[in-house]
């Protein structure tokens, strides 16, 4: 049972506080992704778990044992670095074997473990080579191999795919997910790429300014973002935010007048808003279709084949992006009308928090 609990973790570098009271309970065998913009503290948090940085306050508990003051090696973790951190003077075999050599394991045991890791990672024929002779993806696999042989309780990954090109990144995402299933281990993964987070995570931690914005499953974050920040961060292309004013909050939903002149009635909780409040309506580009409602003046049209992404502005100048059918009859410079499905829209108060949606689309069978 390799659970990982972070209790009230705070971290300051001098006067700068980079992490504020982080509280997370990561379950056994869970794949958790820390995601957020650069400077949000996600790497620092990972390094704190690894023991490469000390906490200013709080506890790290692995498998029920407080490891906050222990050296990295005693915590039962292993870490894969963004730069791979391979030893250029050692062969692939010796790189993978490094942690075992430190432990002074017998040669038989070392060979056995390295062979097993190499087999899982398809590196068997690369063992005699030096890292300099490998491609980026292979190097990353060696780095993963080095963390596998230690058989840690928790795997830590610090942006491991950032140095790879897009195609390889896609392949490695799949491989990492398979590896997670094969090893059946608890993994914590840091990335700034929300696609990686969405595709690989069991649960995602969205960090912003050293605080946890939300901790939940990918679909939970997508359908029920707790804050405007999460809503804007998760989803590709980014969610649109249309300013509006509450016209009526007395009924079963909230009626909002947009600056555009349209009125939308959205099925969200009315608690905490009253008529006249300034709010923002969050609309995902994929939740609109051609029709009546908002007027979009298309400035740039990206035809991706399956979908067409129309970037432009509403009549009041609010930037807006719509993801429409690949063959939609639309053109740059020509205004189109867009219909918003009220059930799919989100409403954010001025402080960035969300009005809870009464219903959310269920997964389609």
């Amino acid at each position, binding site marked *: 049972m390799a659970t990982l609990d972070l209790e009230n973790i705070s971290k300051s570098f001098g006067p700068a506080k980079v992490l504020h009271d982080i509280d997370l309970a990561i379950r056994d065998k869970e794949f958790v992704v820390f995601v957020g913009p650069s400077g949000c503290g996600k790497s620092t948090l990972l390094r704190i778990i*690894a*023991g*490469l940085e000390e906490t200013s306050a709080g506890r790290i508990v692995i498998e029920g044992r407080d490891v906050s003051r222990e*050296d*990295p*090696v005693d915590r039962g*973790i*292993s*870490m894969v*670095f*963004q*730069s791979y*951190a391979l*030893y*250029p*003077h050692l062969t692939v075999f010796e790189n993978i074997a*490094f*942690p075992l050599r*430190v*432990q002074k394991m017998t040669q038989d045991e070392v060979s056995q473990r390295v062979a097993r890791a190499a087999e899982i990672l398809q590196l068997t024929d690369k063992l005699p080579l*030096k*890292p*300099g002779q490998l491609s980026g993806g292979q190097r990353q696999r060696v780095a993963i191999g*080095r963390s596998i042989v*230690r058989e840690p309780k928790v795997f830590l990954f610090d942006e491991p795919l950032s140095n790879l090109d897009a195609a390889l990144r896609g392949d490695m995402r799949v491989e990492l997910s398979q590896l997670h299933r094969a090893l059946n281990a608890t993994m914590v993964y840091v990335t700034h790429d929300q696609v990686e987070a969405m595709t690989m995570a069991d649960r995602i931690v969205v960090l912003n300014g050293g605080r946890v914005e939300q901790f939940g499953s990918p679909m939970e974050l997508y359908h029920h973002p707790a804050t405007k920040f999460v809503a804007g961060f998760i989803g590709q292309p980014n969610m649109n935010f249309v300013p509006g004013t509450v016209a009526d909050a007395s009924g079963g939903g909230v009626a909002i007048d947009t600056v555009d002149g349209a009125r939308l009635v959205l099925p969200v909780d009315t608690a905490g808003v009253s008529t006249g409040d300034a709010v923002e309506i969050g609309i995902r580009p994929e939740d609109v279709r051609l029709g009546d409602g908002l007027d979009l003046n298309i400035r740039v049209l990206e035809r991706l084949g399956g979908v067409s992404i129309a970037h432009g502005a509403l009549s009041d100048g609010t930037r807006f992006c719509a993801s429409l059918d690949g063959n939609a009859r639309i053109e740059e410079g020509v205004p189109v009308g867009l219909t918003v499905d009220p059930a799919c829209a989100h409403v954010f108060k001025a402080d960035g928090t969300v009005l809870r949606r009464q219903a959310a689309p269920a997964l389609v069978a």
Partner: protein
Amino acid sequence: MAERTGRRKLSEAWFAWMLVAPAILFIAVIVAWPLAETIRLSFMEADLGGEEFVGTANYTDLLDSRNFHETVVRTFYWMFLSVGLKLILGLIGATLLNAAIPGRALFRVLVMPPWVIPIAIGCIGWLWLYNGYFGLLSGLGQRLGILDGPFEFLAYKQSAFYSAIVTDVWVGTPMVTLFLLAAMQGVSRDLYEAAWVDGAGRWYRFRRITIPQIMPVIVSMALLSAIWTFNSFEIIWILTEGGPRGATTTLIVDTYKTAISNYKFGEGAARAVIIVILLALFSLIYLFFLNKVNRKYGVK
């Protein structure tokens, strides 16, 4: 048409030669001509009175001379001992300066003086230290009861030789230290962190990461330092002038004494040529070794 391209090619070639001409002239005057002149002189019996061709006599005399053999052996001993000490001290110094200790910037500056102050000034300071009657070392030795009277460090064959080595190491270590420090700072922090996560202690990390990572610099530094030490003249000349009774006479000092002090230009030239040959051979072996090291430690 063909004629025109031909002409353009010709003028391009001329232009290229013009560009390299200053460098060629420089090398010719500074390196090639003196080298040729030295080689020519080495076959002459030459002094202030004139020159006379003697064939290989200067060389055969040298090869038959026991004194000269001793000088060659002494020179290599001097070189290996001094360079070895410089590297060991440099490595220790660089490691300490690279450690996260408070005030290390100050220490980094304090390393510089032996290298920065003129060698002559530093050596005169050491002359005072080594002096038997008012020198610090002799006085300290007597106070501590190690010496039972004034000891003139530069007056005895063995002590003079090792004293000269100490001074040479003192002058040469800072540069080695700074080069190794620069190399250590180039080693990626991630490598150390990865090793630390895997449980490698300080000594293990130093042995398995730092040393291999800076090995190419250590080897290059050793070669440069070896050549400088081999040819080091001022330190010995200021301290002992090669004495007592030749105990600190290295090849370069011997050459100077022969050619400049005794006006035996021909014999001096023969010694100089032998130095060139020895250093060239030494460098060749070294470069071969360096190449192997670079390949082994993953430097392309």
